[in-house]
């Protein structure tokens, strides 16, 4: 048995002859920030869809707080590169979307959504429709919507992948601040090695054909993270190891 928040036990998934994910076992500790890096086709999105319950694995089990949730939905917060805000709802109503889809949006939910939006710089935009927001603002709203699921585990699939470099750096710092306040467990997919090291406590490297975990690094960087750390020897050393795994001897 394990006291991890999320435990994957020999989870595997194939599509026809393609092994998207070979048997994978992982433990994610409560409150940690874990990044998964890997090239496309390494099975990271398949892994996410299995954890979220959108895909049933061919074999293995997904345990959340030691409860078997394999192939079921409704137990994680989930966010993609596409913000998926609904254009017909205001910012406030988008933030409370999860409750509207699963129960009733209460006055407390609304107050919480407003508090959150004000605390994270979107207080002026509560009554705006998403079409009025910039890409970075939209992703912030999408993340607040994810937080408002009140799930302990958040799956973020390249959430900042579509943003420009400057906005992305701002969003990373913002995310770290929100994560510290919100005390959640984050599993974060990215193809950006710098991003994975800057954000995570632990960096898992995956590789394609067949999709599998090839390395699992503990990040030596202390918290809180600062931009200066991006050039520290520890950062560079870890980046070198990961790059070597991703690009082989050629790097």
């Amino acid at each position, binding site marked *: 048995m394990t006291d991890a928040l999320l435990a994957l036990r020999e989870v595997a998934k194939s599509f026809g002859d393609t092994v998207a994910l070979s048997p994978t076992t992982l433990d994610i500790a409560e409150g940690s920030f874990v990044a998964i890096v890997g090239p496309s086709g390494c099975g990271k999105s398949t892994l996410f869809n299995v954890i979220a319950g*959108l895909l049933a694995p061919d074999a293995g089990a997904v345990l959340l707080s030691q409860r078997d949730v394999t192939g079921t939905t409704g137990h994680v917060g*989930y966010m993609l590169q*596409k913000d998926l805000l*609904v254009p017909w*709802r*205001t910012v406030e109503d988008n933030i409370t*979307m999860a409750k509207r889809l699963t129960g009733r949006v209460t006055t407390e939910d609304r107050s919480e959504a407003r508090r959150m939006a004000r605390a994270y710089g979107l207080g002026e935009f509560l009554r705006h*429709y998403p*079409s009025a927001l910039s890409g970075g603002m939209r992703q912030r709203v999408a993340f607040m919507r994810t937080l408002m699921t009140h799930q302990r585990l958040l799956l973020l699939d390249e959430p900042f992948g579509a943003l420009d470099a400057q906005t992305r750096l701002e969003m990373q710092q913002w995310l770290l601040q929100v994560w510290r306040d919100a005390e959640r467990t984050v599993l974060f997919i990215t193809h950006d090695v710098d991003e994975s090291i800057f954000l995570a406590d632990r960096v898992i490297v995956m590789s394609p054909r067949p999709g599998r975990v090839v390395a699992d690094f503990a990040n030596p960087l202390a918290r809180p993270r600062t931009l200066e750390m991006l050039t520290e020897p520890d950062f560079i050393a870890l980046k070198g190891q990961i790059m070597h795994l991703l690009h082989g001897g050629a790097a």
Partner: protein
Amino acid sequence: MRATRRRLGLVARNVGIPILSLVLVLVLWQLIVVGFHVASYVAPRPRAAIDAVTQNWSVLWPLVLGTIRETVYGFVVGAALGFFLGVIMAKVSFLQGLVYPVLVLSQAIPIIALAAPLVLILGFSTAPKIVIVAWIVFFPVTVNVIDGLSHVDRDLVNLAKVYGASRWRTFWQIEIPATSTPLFSGLKIGATYAVTGAIIGELAASDGSSLALYQEHANSNLNTAAVYGTTMVMTAIGISWFLLVVGVEVFATPWRRRTVARRWPWRRGRDLADR
């Protein structure tokens, strides 16, 4: 101040230009009739057509009400049926394959040919006219609803699923609002055809008093001004109904025009909840 001026400008453009084009049509009509010395039994002057309507308004008004009733009832029945069929067919692909050809077939039948059996079945009441209007209206609604529902973003539907939403909630909270644009396109097409359907129904299945027969009567009496006047009335009914549907669309889809949601008086309590 500037915002008010801009709003006024927008209203002037949205209302003023259509009115201007209407006036232009009347002017052109006048010029052609006068300029080419068209005889009044061939085509009246606009003024004569308008007079033919206003002077006989007490006779016309109950007939107009009848046409409006057929149009509205038929539209509501057709739109509801069209929506229902669209949803069912989009959700059950087996039914889509089975029913779609029948629907296309239904539209290939000339409406006039439909009227005779409808009268036999339903008699000379309002019912056959409602059926004809609904027959015309449901099709564009169904086609657009199917199209809209099959193009809803799969990722959005999956997101709702991951959150634990039921299919029912996902349908009403995600799929239906996402379909609003094609749905209203279908309704607007239906609205433009609805009056035509009602008039055809009145022509083919009327026992005496109807707007269409009034016009036919005027025609056989060589009362051309009344013929044109009645046409104007029919057109006005059609345009009004179309504008009403557009009005509902504008009201129901504020996010397409506004950046900030409107504050409704009955929602004030909600807005003030945590202040």
